[in-house]
């Protein structure tokens, strides 16, 4: 009997190996973001001259728009998964394209905000309001790591959709890359209130 015909024991979790690998990655990455947010929380609580840099307009309003965009990108990703399961390849690719577009829009808004803050004098070690420099370093550190995940996700979505369209990957791979995208959305559900809203003027 060749190795390819050996009967395989069913996964106790009922998911294929690539999906299990993605869940393992998400668990590890979740702990990473958790560690960073805990560190931020302790630093913020332990810094007496912490300043609140975000006004309702434009910072919080921009953050709200970014949140709605990211949530909408999760919805389009769900559309992609539904179309992939139904065998509608072109429709699935269009949904993935919409997700990528929203991801790029999110990144563009984020970078615009960053550059506006740089212009005001904010930096990793600079606080133009005269308070703790940690405000800038924690903000750019946390949002930068999240932005890196968004950009990586847009690239991963493009690669998987391209290979799916060419028949090299199946619908389950669209679902697996979708898990990553939803995770990026989930992390933002903590970053937005803890980093933006808690620092609203």
């Amino acid at each position, binding site marked *: 009997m060749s190795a390819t015909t050996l009967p395989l024991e069913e996964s106790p*979790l009922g998911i294929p190996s690539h999906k299990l690998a993605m869940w393992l990655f998400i668990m590890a990455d979740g702990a990473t973001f958790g560690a960073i947010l805990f560190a931020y929380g302790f630093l913020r609580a332990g810094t007496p001259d912490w300043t609140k840099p975000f006004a309702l307009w434009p910072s*919080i309003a921009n953050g709200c728009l970014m949140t*709605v965009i990211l949530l909408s990108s999760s919805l389009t990703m*769900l559309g992609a998964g539904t179309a992939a399961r139904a065998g509608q390849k072109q429709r699935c690719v269009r949904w993935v394209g919409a997700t990528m577009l929203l991801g790029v829009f999110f990144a563009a808004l984020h970078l615009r905000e960053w550059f506006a803050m740089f212009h005001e004098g904010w930096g990793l070690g600079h606080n133009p309001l005269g308070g703790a420099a940690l405000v800038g370093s924690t903000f750019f550190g946390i949002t930068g790591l999240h932005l890196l995940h968004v950009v990586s996700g847009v690239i991963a979505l493009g690669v998987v959709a391209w290979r799916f369209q060419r028949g090299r990957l199946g619908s389950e791979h669209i679902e697996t890359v979708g898990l990553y995208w939803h995770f990026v959305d*989930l992390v933002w559900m*903590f970053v937005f209130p803890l980093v933006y809203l808690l620092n609203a003027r």
Partner: protein
Amino acid sequence: MNMRTYVTVWLGMIALVAVEVLVTYARPSPGTLLATLLALALVEAAVALLYFMHLKYERRALLWWTVPLVLFALVMLDHVWPDALRLASLRLH
């Protein structure tokens, strides 16, 4: 799950974000604000895990294998970080 359910969940998530912003500008005490925002974020995370990431429709073993492990790691981190601050200030006891 069909798209109608997904759209309902999406609208619910946007509503929760709106509540977060409204609570912030109601200017409660810092402790109340932190507790409220964390509670709302946890609800959003649970909804995202169950509906967007399909944990509700996978085998229960996957949910019980993933979520408690991550929560355990995060709780342990929460206990370790104050110790790191104590060491930073060189107060041994």
